[in-house]
């Protein structure tokens, strides 16, 4: 896996640019990753990102938009508003997690 420097920290990424070592992530990195794709993180974004991180730590898998709604309590509409067009992948990217595998 190649490495790159994000926010002054050397981290592992895959060919697309998704981080591959969730433990290397921190909030400073999240701000840079969000900026890379034109998103400025607000309190609402952070609430969602924190859920994704916690859920991943417990489940070993990135939550789908469905799970972010039913378990994380963030309605689908809000997810699309916060992370336009491709919420599942954008959330995962900023949270330093792999893309979700689930179909729904």
């Amino acid at each position, binding site marked *: 896996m190649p490495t790159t420097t994000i926010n002054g920290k050397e981290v592992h990424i895959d060919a697309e*640019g998704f981080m591959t070592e969730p433990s290397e992530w921190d909030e400073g990195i999240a701000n840079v990753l969000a900026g890379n*794709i034109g998103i400025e993180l607000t309190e609402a974004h952070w609430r969602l990102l924190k859920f994704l991180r916690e859920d991943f730590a417990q489940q070993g898998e990135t939550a789908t938009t469905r799970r972010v*709604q039913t378990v994380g309590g963030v309605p689908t509409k809000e997810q699309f508003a916060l992370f*336009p*067009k*491709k919420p599942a*992948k954008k959330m995962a990217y900023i949270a330093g997690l792999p893309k979700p595998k689930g*179909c729904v």
Partner: protein
Amino acid sequence: MTDQPVIPSFGDDEESDRKLAIICSKGNLDMAYPGLILGNAALGEGVETHLFFTFWGFDIITKSRMHDLKFTPVGNTATHMPMGLTPLPGMTGMATKQMKKAMDDLEIPTVPDFLDQIVASGGHLWACRLSADMNKLTDADLRDDVEGIISASDFIEMTAGAQLLFI
């Protein structure tokens, strides 16, 4: 070590006119899901998505029926049951219950909940004019988020250039 930051492409800079139209023509529980799963996935990828409900697929959006779609093993060799047993009384009820449980265990929403999610994701629901007339149904009988009862030609016109799935 890479010099340039590698940033995934989420397609934001591309002017995408990709559009998906899904025609849902079946009212069995097992045949309702493929269209919903694919439509939901397309919306999650930023694709404009339209679902058109016609013939038996009308049950999926009809208020009095959408909570009660059924799965039957009758005539379905992929269940690998002896076909002679499949029409026995109670078999369809049992198979339906099992399928609903299997879906629930996988955290797949029920059909009405799934449509809620699709609409919240920006999906469009349309009902077929002929099916409404055949079943003597009006807007009032359908989910409130169905955008209209339209003719086949309206649908074809509206989905010009779309990729199309018939289920």
